[in-house]
């Protein structure tokens, strides 16, 4: 069981997010990313959402200009993985408010944080949308506090200079 890698690739083949759930040399990773994205991008909308790649199964779904791609084991349940992808998109949508590719480019780290809350060790860890969202927002809130402290300190520093 379990997801082996999770990729977000644009229609032009640019990687927007890549998460690996098992250790692999960087070289092999980029080869897989290249191969898999070129395999998926050319597929027509009415084809099924599964392709095979070197004994692994690739489950993907396209949302607007982005392909969400998962590599899974041969005997995993493909449809349920498709729902994992969908859930991820739903959460991103809620988080960014009508998410688009640009949001994910400029806030790539946020996309990672959301994924981290959803999947752990290649398995779905949290099936409730609101829980994932609140976990990510809690992190944001902590960062916000940090940022405010930063500003205050900066101001204090400035005042001291005078």
């Amino acid at each position, binding site marked *: *069981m*379990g997801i082996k890698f999770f990729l977000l690739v644009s229609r032009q083949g*640019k*990687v*927007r997010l890549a998460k690996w759930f*098992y*250790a*692999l040399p*960087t070289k092999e990773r*980029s080869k897989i990313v290249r191969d898999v994205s070129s395999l998926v991008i050319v597929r027509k909308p*009415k*084809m*099924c*959402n*599964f*392709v*095979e790649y070197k*004994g*692994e199964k690739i489950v993907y779904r396209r949302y607007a200009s982005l392909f969400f791609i998962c590599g899974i084991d*041969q005997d995993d*349940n*493909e*449809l*349920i993985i*498709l*729902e*994992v992808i969908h859930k991820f998109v739903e959460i991103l949508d809620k988080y*960014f*408010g009508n998410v688009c590719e640009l*949001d994910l*480019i*400029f*806030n*790539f*780290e*946020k996309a*990672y*944080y959301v994924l*981290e*809350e959803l999947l*752990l*060790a290649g*398995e*779905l*860890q*949290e*099936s*409730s949308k609101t*829980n994932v969202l609140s*976990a990510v927002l809690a*992190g*944001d809130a*902590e*960062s*916000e*506090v*940090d*940022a405010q*402290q*930063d500003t205050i300190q900066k101001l204090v520093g400035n005042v001291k200079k005078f």
Partner: protein
Amino acid sequence: MVVNNQMKGLKTFISDLRNLKEEKDEEKRINIELAKIRAKFQSSTLSAYDRKKYVSKLLYIYMLGYPISFGHLEAVNLLTATKYSEKQIGYLAVALLLNENHDLIRLVINSIRKDLLSLDPDKNALALHAVANFGGRELCEAVYPEIQQLLMSAATENIVRQKAALSLLHIYRKFSDIMDMDLLEPIIMLLDDDDLNVSLAVSNFVFLIICREPSLHGLVCRKAIHKLKLIVSGRGYSSGYIYYSVPCPWLQVNLCRILLICHEEVTDETTKRTLINVLDRMLSIFKDYKDNKHLNVINAILFDAIKLAFAVDDSGSLYQKCMKCLGEMISNKEPNVRYLAFDTTAYLISCGHSLPSLKTHKDLILSSLRYKDVSIRKKSLELLYMMCDSENSKTMVNELLIYLPYLDSVSQEDLISKVASLTEIYADDYKWYVDVNLQLLRVAGKSVNDDVWHQLVRVIVNNESIQQYAVRNLFKLLQSDSTHDSLTRSGCYILGEYGYLIANEPGSGPLQQFITVYKKLHTSSVGTSVLLLTALLKLSNLQPDLHKRVAAVFKRYSVSLNTEVQQRACEYLQLLTLPKEFLSIVCEEVPVFTIPAKKSLPSISNRSDVSLTDSVTSTKEIDVSSSLPGFYRLCWRDKGILYRDSQVQVGALVEFRDLQVCLSLYFENRKTETYTSFSSTLLRTFPNFKVDSSFTDTIFSPDKQLQQRFSVDRLDELFDPPIIRVSFLAGVMRKVNLMLPIVLSKFLRPTSFDSSTFFQRWGLIGVEREAQLAFGLNGINSRLDERRLMKIVTGLHWGICSGIDTNVSNIVGAGILQLNAQNIGCLLRLEPNYQNDMIRLSIRSTNTTVANVLATNMQDILKNSFYSNT
């Protein structure tokens, strides 16, 4: 909703990159930025905010696919910071930039531990993610106690507990030796947790547990049925877990998959009824939600439910329901559903379920061969292949052949190798076999794999009855102007060998044969030309009239620009000048091929991977030394490690049921890389020894365990322990020979006698049917140990008769062996000498050979079981 406006520099950098027109400019811009960041990192006045910003930039550059060679230390510094925002980016950077064996990981172990102990659940979460993301051995060993604490403590928040469960799963997957095995049972108990998310996380863990620990199947089975029943009946969860009107589909799927493995533990009728009812209900969902937009979720559950339903009860009411569902899914227009319906059906057939109603869908499956989606084409071919049996094989092959010309080259190749292997499996007459294979060569020669035509040649050579027929038809095909290499090669090869068989038939005399081959020579590739020259040589050997013409051809090609062809032509030309007897010896008909036929064909997924070799290789050639320590140990133990090195570990479990002995082997990958071409082959076996089940995967990933089961139902004759060869590709080809702990003493049933009976029988058998051996121990430091000795003797299935011998240190035992439906009594007397570490062993049995085999085997085991370190 995103409020974060920090790190303006990063945003500007990203939009800068996006505004560049050309790829080259991007690289330039990135190099400038990298130089700038490097300079910043070297300066001593770097604020925490800047560090965060620059590391983020590095991450973005890394994501674009550029290698990052510095900044790792800064990432580590961020991780160990106290502020959450810095920590967060630090954890992300370390996960992305460092691999688990990087030296710098050592620096963060303490910090991760601190975060695990923190009272802030957000920090716990970051640390748990880190363990799951890049937990190497050192890190996992260091934080294992804290994670276990987090998972088991009632004070932990649920969200942290589910993360702890999955981090622990990571450890169990990769370094199971770190895990405390007593913890497995409590973890299984957590399936009952009220929080469905904890339950979900744990279910992933439990799946791996049951793959590894058969002894826990019973417990898991009960828990899983209970949980599934709760969910399906609509109880035990809150509304937050409903996903498109289905309660927690992920958990349902996981539970189905878990039960698929351990459902056999259901022994009582009530539990079985419960399970059947639950499944019945799940299958009924299909009807209820037909209009639902999100059929996906329902189908996801349905496919796993069907697999489970078949396994639990493949005859009753469930069966009807399943068949109806499957039928509707196969004819469904949605490509995903069709794909999975094919997949599931192929799986069910491979499990041995008969699906007679499938025949009604055959045409639809066949027509899917021309579906525009390659994934579906592939699946339908796989399914058709699985649907083949001895009855329908001929019609099926014919129908597949109809589709052959219309396919793309990849599918053609796939179809050809499948058809070729079908003809081989189901051929009852060779004529059909030859016909079909020739058709493959004719219609789609370019997609024919070398293996396929090699195999064809091999079959023709090995079967005299078919040779004339084959050569006649091949000759006919060769007449065509354009033939593909594979046809030319196989055709000319066979013509060279057996052309004389048709030399008297009109239109195929020696001269015509010569012309046909000669014509091909102009248009062929180098590899083929070489074969053609050989064919000509063979022709001229049997038909002396051709001698001159052939010599002329060789002469012409002896100046060929290609050295390979040139060399061949020169050599053959020389051969022709030598005395005739010499040529006929060189060109003698090829002998029958001895390679077992099946091996050469590409192994087809789903068909069993164990190839039983026909010829039994003699033991002396097989080196099994590496598995001997494990072998000796397992001779007197029921479970343990048979073999272990840095790459693989093979665990073994021996079980006894009545007279049956079962052996399960568990293969584990100890590295983090995935091995390919994993297979196991029986090198030595005996007639009663059967392979019950075997892994079908040839891919061996680190988190997986492969299993193989063997059994011996009864014994008809004495045997040597079987040997298997495990081979796999891990960079280089690795081969390990393993001697399996199936020895005669495993079949012994312990019995006990009182003193008088024992000596009566001992005397009755007499000294002439006694095997006696006296020996010392191997290894200089070996010391005989009384307790261990006793353990071994009982482990070897001797019933101990205590207090019989006058010398108390002597061990006396008895056992009964059933061989060829006869009971053979065996008696043992073992006299240990603890001062000199020597043993005298006497075994008397009504069958002298049995006594000898038991004694030598026991001697080997005892000699090697008392090393000082064991």
